[in-house]
């Protein structure tokens, strides 16, 4: 598989929703080959703590790509046919401009001087990256969770620039409960004395404990009660009886502590604040007089919406609302609800029904628009 890592430095600043201008760069990876007509490009949008390493080893964690089971040669998002682009989002911390980047005006790390970015700002920056490739129309935009929000924003704001869209395990707005969980995470970070009002980089400290707690709280929302029960139950960790203390007696405690501690090695605390805020602010219908269907009027985009039965962070009802809004404008929409006990995390796991839906949808869309140039049997 042809795989490249690169950085796009925009010569022009971007105007953000908050009104400020920002000079920025996006760090991105590509997989496969762009065809001469530039019709086979797929943009993949990562989730809150995801990255551009969708199908390649993350250089920090040395773990394989987060969608390596979905993206690659012969896989549902087939890099033998499609040119896959995945960029670290604006506000992120893996090479794209974010609060851990240097402010060109002051020469210091931004910290909380970084402007608040929105999902739309992230998409604006991505659209400039797509311009940079001289791609008029993306064959598809695909993403789960926060990535799914970006997919919906693309579909609403750049209608003529995408042929198809696959929003997975997502919603058209962040629910009150979701905002609540994010707020717990942010408060954990800000309550850590090492956070230092966001100036920890210049003071050479790190709010690792706060960020770890934020991750622990969030991680619970990514799993279902059933999957926790199945995986851990009330099993004890490395002991035969309870300790009558506050050690990690239970396996679930040990697991969460591990998740929290390993997260701080790869993620910037301020970036976590900014990205969770972007998700909280996301409400696609709000821009269209609170009418979600208006976001999709006259759309030619073919949609495949996917949700998971046990996902309580972005429950299937949220996805169904999007599908119904699309029906109201007679858009071409498929809605797949995958029966899975694994909760929100299911979209990153081995879910054959999701794989076959993505594969069937992309193949038939490629056929419909005649985009596969090599005359493959699509």
């Amino acid at each position: 598989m042809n795989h490249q890592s690169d950085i796009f430095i925009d010569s022009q600043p971007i105007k953000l929703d908050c009104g400020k201008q920002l000079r920025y760069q996006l760090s991105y990876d590509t997989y496969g080959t762009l065809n001469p007509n530039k019709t086979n490009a797929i943009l993949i949008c990562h989730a809150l703590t995801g990255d551009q390493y969708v199908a390649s080893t993350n250089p920090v964690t040395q773990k394989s790509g987060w969608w390596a089971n979905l993206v690659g040669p012969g896989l549902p998002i087939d890099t033998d046919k499609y040119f896959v682009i995945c960029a670290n989002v604006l506000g992120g911390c893996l090479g794209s401009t974010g609060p851990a980047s240097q402010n060109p005006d002051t020469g210091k790390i931004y910290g909380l001087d970084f402007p608040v970015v929105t999902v739309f700002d992230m998409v604006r920056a991505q659209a400039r990256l797509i311009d940079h490739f001289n791609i008029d129309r993306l064959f598809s935009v695909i993403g789960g969770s926060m990535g799914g929000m970006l997919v919906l924003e693309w579909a609403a704001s750049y209608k003529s620039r995408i042929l198809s869209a696959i929003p997975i395990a997502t919603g058209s707005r962040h629910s009150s409960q979701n905002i609540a969980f994010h707020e717990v995470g942010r408060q954990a970070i800000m309550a850590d004395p090492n956070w230092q009002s966001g100036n920890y980089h210049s003071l050479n400290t790190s709010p690792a404990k706060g960020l770890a707690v934020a991750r622990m709280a969030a991680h619970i929302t990514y799993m279902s009660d059933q999957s926790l029960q199945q995986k851990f139950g009330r099993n004890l960790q490395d002991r035969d009886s309870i300790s009558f203390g506050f050690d990690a007696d239970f396996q679930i405690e040990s697991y969460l502590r591990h998740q929290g501690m390993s997260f701080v090695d790869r993620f910037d605390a301020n970036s976590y604040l900014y990205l969770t805020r972007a998700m909280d602010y996301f409400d696609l219908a709000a821009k269209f007089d609170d009418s979600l269907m208006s976001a999709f009027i006259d759309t030619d985009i073919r949609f495949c919406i996917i949700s998971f039965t046990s996902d309580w962070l972005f429950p299937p009802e949220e996805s169904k609302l999007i599908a119904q809004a699309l029906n109201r404008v007679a858009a071409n929409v498929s809605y797949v609800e995958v029966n899975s006990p694994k909760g929100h995390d299911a979209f990153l796991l081995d879910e054959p029904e999701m794989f076959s839906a993505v594969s069937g949808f992309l193949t038939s869309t490629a056929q419909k628009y005649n985009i596969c140039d090599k005359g493959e049997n699509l």
Partner: protein
Amino acid sequence: MSFESQRFDLLLLADMIAPNSRVLDIGCGDGRLLKLLTKNKNIDARGLELDQTGVNACVADGLSVMQGNADVDLAYYPDNAFDYVILSKTIQATQRPDLVLKEMLRIGKHAIVSFPNFGQWRVISSLAFKSQMPVTKNLEYTWYETPNVHFCTITDFRILCHDLDIKILDTVILNKRGQKLKLPAWMGMNNLFGDQAIFLLSKK
């Protein structure tokens, strides 16, 4: 058995549809009709199916399908969104066939409805001579487990169309094997020997 010989009714139904049109198939099942229409007639075909497992299989097969119920989910579509709205062997399982028909002709310029004829002689004789609710190839459930709650005869359906001010553009009556019934167009005969009927409808 090839699928063509198995489902003559789908081929006859597909014959009623003009190429390059927009179609919604309610109760699309495994998506056979959608596939046939997409492949042979360049049709923008969508499906609505009650069973989520069936929906997932259709999408994996490249079709545009979502989970939904004829009684509830047609409300989400705008007026005249489709050239044809199809309800194939499903009307007898809806809660309110009359309201479903009206909705079909609100969201579509044409409606195509096929249903098993409850007036045919096998059904009548089962009731008359065995004193039992009929179980035939097209009415395959016993009375206590059937999802079919609103049976009608071909005559009943014509009367409903008249009452709802719906225009019948075409009618095809099928025999037990799903082939076109070639009888004199005399109502009683069709009603007595027709195993199923397909109606092409429009607003008046």
